[in-house]
Structure formats: structure tokens, C-alpha cells
């Protein structure tokens, strides 16, 4: 049997705290002290700027965001500006790439993350799709999940953010991932009502398990 992946739901946690935790998890995974893991989280409103981050993707003055307590956090993942906030499920897979069946194929890894979201949405009868050349998952011409990944010592971190029931108005702060003319949507907007977070989480875990053909087990964080 393939080695299991430990899953842990951090619940509502500040972005910075989750980022710190991810960085520690990467270090321990790279050192071989822990196995592969996936952390799930939900954040207070925050904007994260990837290394591809273009400030012109910001549509409102920074001062206005500051006044609302919304930080713009520079992060080491690829991609442009991303919004995180309540009502999103954010998944952070901490995986040693070498252990994946296809090794260090990063684009393949991105496609796998998209596949996890697509399968999760399919459980609700929603037709998620990819939009070449963009990374992420769309329903129709609206983006429902954003993806951005970083790799340190051949261990992945960052991941995807699935819009379950966020305040879609907050996305007006940015051109998500620098892509204009393409809107943002959520599962709630698509389904007419918000699915239960716990249920979506369970389906995401199942989707990870099926995409990588590995058991995903609930386990406390390994950060020694």
C-alpha cells in the first residue's frame, strides 16, 4: 500500500501563523522527520502576493485595505495576488516531490491539485474545468479555486484555496492572479446555498486520496 498522507484541519487561523507552520513543516519534511501531510485552514481576510505579484493587480488603495485590517503579505509561492478570507477552504499539501509517482514534474503537480478540486466539485454536481494557460479551477468562466505553489528542498508548500462561501465582494480588491475579465465565484453562488464546510473538507480529503492513490488519514501535525 502507498504511504499515507496525514491530514489536519487547522480551522480558523491567521495567514501569517499558517505560513509559519508551513515553513516549519517543510523543514521537518525535508529533514525526513515527518511524512507527507496536508493542512487545511480558513483565514481572516488577507491578500497574499506571490513572486509573480504585480501591485497593479491591486484595485484599491493600500491605505484603504490597511484601514480594514487587511494585510498584503508577500509570500514565496508562484502566482500573483490572491485573496484569502472566511468561507474559503485552503489546502496546504506538504509533500516530498520525489515520493510522488511522477517525481519532480511541477506542472503535473499543479494539474493534480486542479484535479482534486474538480473531483470535489463533481461531488456537488458542479462542472469544474481548467482554463489553459491559467492555473486554477473554473466553473463556466468564473474561477472557483486559486492555486499557487512553492517548493523548498523539493518539498511543496502553499496550495489551493477553494471558494466555498466567501464574501465575493472582497475579490473586487484585486484582479485575481492578475487575470482580468474573468470573474470569481463560489460554491454557494453556484449551488444557491453554502455546503457544510466539514462535508467539503471530507470530499477534498477523498479527492486527494483518489488522485494520488494514497490513504489520507486524520493526524495531528508533525512539526518536531
Amino acid at each position, binding site marked *: 500500500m502507498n504511504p499515507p498522507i496525514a491530514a489536519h484541519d487547522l480551522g480558523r487561523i491567521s495567514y501569517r501563523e499558517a505560513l509559519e507552520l508551513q515553513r516549519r513543516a517543510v523543514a521537518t519534511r525535508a529533514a525526513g522527520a515527518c511524512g507527507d501531510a496536508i493542512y487545511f485552514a480558513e483565514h481572516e481576510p488577507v491578500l497574499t502576493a506571490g513572486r509573480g505579484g504585480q501591485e497593479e493587480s491591486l484595485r484599491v488603495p493600500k491605505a484603504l485595505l490597511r484601514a480594514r485590517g487587511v494585510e498584503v503579505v508577500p509570500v*514565496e*509561492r508562484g502566482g500573483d495576488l490572491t485573496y484569502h478570507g472566511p468561507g474559503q477552504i485552503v489546502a496546504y499539501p506538504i509533500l516530498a516531490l520525489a515520493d510522488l509517482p511522477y517525481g519532480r514534474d511541477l506542472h503535473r503537480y499543479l494539474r493534480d491539485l486542479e484535479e482534486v478540486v474538480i473531483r470535489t466539485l463533481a461531488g456537488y454536481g458542479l462542472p469544474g474545468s481548467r482554463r489553459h494557460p491559467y492555473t486554477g479551477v473554473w466553473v463556466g468562466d468564473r474561477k472557483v479555486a486559486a492555486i499557487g505553489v512553492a*517548493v523548498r528542498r*523539493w518539498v511543496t508548500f502553499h496550495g489551493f484555496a477553494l471558494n466555498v462561501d466567501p464574501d465575493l465582494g472582497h475579490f473586487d480588491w484585486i484582479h485575481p492572479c492578475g487575470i482580468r475579465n474573468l470573474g470569481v465565484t463560489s460554491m454557494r453562488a453556484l449551488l444557491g446555498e453554502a455546503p457544510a464546510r466539514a462535508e467539503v473538507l471530507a470530499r477534498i480529503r477523498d479527492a486527494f486520496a483518489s488522485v494520488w492513490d494514497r490513504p489520507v488519514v486524520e493526524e495531528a501535525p508533525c512539526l518536531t
Partner: protein
Amino acid sequence: MPVTIVVPQLGESVVEGTVGKWLKKEGDPIAKDEPVVEIITDKINIELPAPAAGTLGKITVPEGTVAQVGQQLGVILQQGESLPAGGGAPAPAGGAAQGSGGPQRPASPTQQSPQQRPQAPPSGGAPSRQPEPARAGAAVAEAPFGEDQRVSPAVRKLLKEHNLDVSGIRGSGLGGRVTREDVLNHIEGSRVAAAAGTQAPAAAPGMQPGRAPSSPQAGAPQPTKPIPAPSFTAPGTREEEVVQATNVRKKIAENMLRSRHMAAHCSTWDEVDMTRLVELRARMKERVKSTYGVNLTYMPFILKAVVRALKEFPVLNASMSESGEIHYKKYYNIGIAVHREQGLIVPVVHDADRKTLLQLAHEVEDLGNRARSDKLQLNDIQGGTFTITNAGMFGATASTPIINYPEVGVLGVHLIQERPVVRDHRIMIRNMMTLVVSFDHRLVDGTPAVQFLHRVKELLEDPESWLLDSI
């Protein structure tokens, strides 16, 4: 031996990445597997681990540059090693592709040391083979020693680039091994020798024959005088300063272009006799300043006139959606273009039709001040229905403003100056101003645009007439 850092194979569909941030500086000590440099592809950021311990000797590809899979990014020196003279990298992988004219993007010229460049064979001599991509996972481009055990891969590459045979070069390294320095010295030596020996640069190996100055054809009449150069021409240095556009500038550019692409721009203009308004304002100015602390400019009067005219010609206060819906706005939010150091911005006077002259004067002043000190709120710059721009502030007597899309009209106001005008067969001096309206001809026909402009002109020329229906 110095170890090179190269862009590893990152997946079948990944052929290049941008060098993000160098996490180490030249001279920094590095532990094996420690992240040294970031490579950014579209959605992924990879921190490349150091292939060996040592010191970061040389960064060959600077931040922000696109690098191909297999291309060398830098060099790690081990204890006691130093960079060869000239500071060049042992194996500029991108350079090999240069002569081949292959699809691979050559490394930028700045990555080659100046000593190397003139000696590079123009074509043919360079190996056309693409640099070998490193195996998946390995960030090292240490090709195994091939048929010649005496030279390192870097030196072998250099030899190949210059079409040299190692047997012709004296080695100074351990056990007579030919080092990179030996090769460079050899090349330099033969170049100097050739140049000294024959005078003809074309004879020097590796030099471009085309560089020799062409002599005039024999038999052709020889000009006797050179073209005289004027004494005032200084040698042109063609100096350029390259500055990255600010986000504000990029945003302005985007908005301007969008307007130009989307709207069918057309402008019409007229001359306005501002004499009576100039007198009226002069009478009221001091009192308004001392009583309310507000500077009374012409703008609040112009705002009043514009709102009145917009009410009479509602199509100028409308907009058209891409699906063809026309929105006639029954509210009057007038944007006023403000010049700032950072670039143009257009704060909006909301509900200008429901404000008094004094309120307008105060608001225009306040918005201007806050625009210049970067203290505008989002609401201050949103929701405009029509725009006024004052190019006269800096002395312009006319202009053709760009519409603040998706609005359909913009009024340009200009310098008020005394000009000779003819009234009743007499030439008189009046305070005149050119008034321009640019309108989106998709939605606004010429007639309402001209009528609108004429109405604004009438109102400005006869401010007392406003009293008739406002008392």
C-alpha cells in the same frame, strides 16, 4: 573544482523559468542543499538547493532574467578555489546556443565577460549542441569526464567554443592539467600575436573578417573635402535613463488605452467670453476667502454650468454597456482631473446638482488637496458620470481630452486670457477661454454635443441669468 548551479528539469512542459530572488549573495558561504536561488514558473516558485557546499563564487544570471532548463545560473566555489581571471563563468551554457541560432533564447550579453565576447567565433565554430539538461533532481551540471580526462567540462566547453585542441595548450594545473586560465591565456596570446604580425585583423583566428574597414573602389573619383562638422555638436552619448513605470502610471496607461479603444472619440470646441464671470468672481473672491476660508476658483461655476447643461442634454451624462444598454444617469457625479506628481487622478464630486456654489468650491479644493497628498478614499474616485479637465492650469489654450471611459463626455477648460474679439463691428478686449468637449460618438451625435457645449458657453457668459430660476 567549482560546481555550477543550473536550472534543473522541472517537468515535461517546463522549458524555462525566471530567476526570482538570489537567496545568497556572491561570497556567501553555502551548505549543501541549502536554498540558493528561486526559479519562478507561472504558478510555482522553486528554491533550488545548493548542489554542493562552498561559497557562492559568481551569479551568472541576475534576478528577473529568463533562464532555460539546463542553463547555468551561478558557480559554487569550494575551499581554496577562486574564480578564474576575467570573472567569467566556467561554462556559460547559454553562450553555446548563441552561435547555433537555435530556438533556445541566448543568455543576455551582460552574462558574458567582456573579454570573451570579441573572441567568440561568429558562426560555425561554435558547437550547435544544446546544453545538456541536468538530470531530474540534480541541480548540478557536472558532466562525467569523457574521452579526455585532463580537462574539466568547463574547460572542454571553452575549447570547443574556440575550436581549439587541448594538445596545443600548455597546462599549468595539477599534473600538467589545462585550466580555464590556460585556455584564455592561449587565446589572448594568439590574438595579440596575429594582430602584431600582419596588421590585417581578418587573419587573426576567430576574428570577424567583415570588420575590416572597406576601402573606396579604385578608379572612383576621390572626394577632396570631408563633410564639415558644426563646431557646436558635442559627441553624442545617447544617454538613456531606464525607469520602471510605477503602478499608478501603468494604471493610467491602461485606462487611457481602454478609452481610446472602446470609445469613438470626437471633439468640438467654442470660444467663451468669460469677462463677466471674471468680474463676478473677482468681486466675491475675497469675501468667500475671509468668511469661509475657501478659495473661490472658476471650477465651481463651471461645475454648475455643466450640471445644468447635462440636465438639458442627458445623453452626455449617460453610458453604454457592451451589451448595448444605455444608462441615462439621473445623478450628476462630476469627475475633476487633478495633476499630481505620481500621475493624473480623477476625484469625483458626487451629486454636484444638489450642492451650492460654496459647497462645490470647498469640495473641489478638498478633493484636490487630498489627491495630491494621496489621501483619497476609494469612494472619492468612483461613480463618475462626466468629467472636467483643466489643462488651462498650466497654460494650455486648447486640448482634446480623452474621455474617462465608460463616461461619454469630457469637458476641457483652458486658460482665460485677454484676446481681441469682434463685437458689433468693433474690436474689443475680452477675457476669452476655449471650451472643448470630447464625446463618444458611438452614443452621442454631433448635434447634442455641440448644443451641450453651446449651452455651457451661454451659462458661463451670462452668470446672472442663473438667478432667474434659482431664487
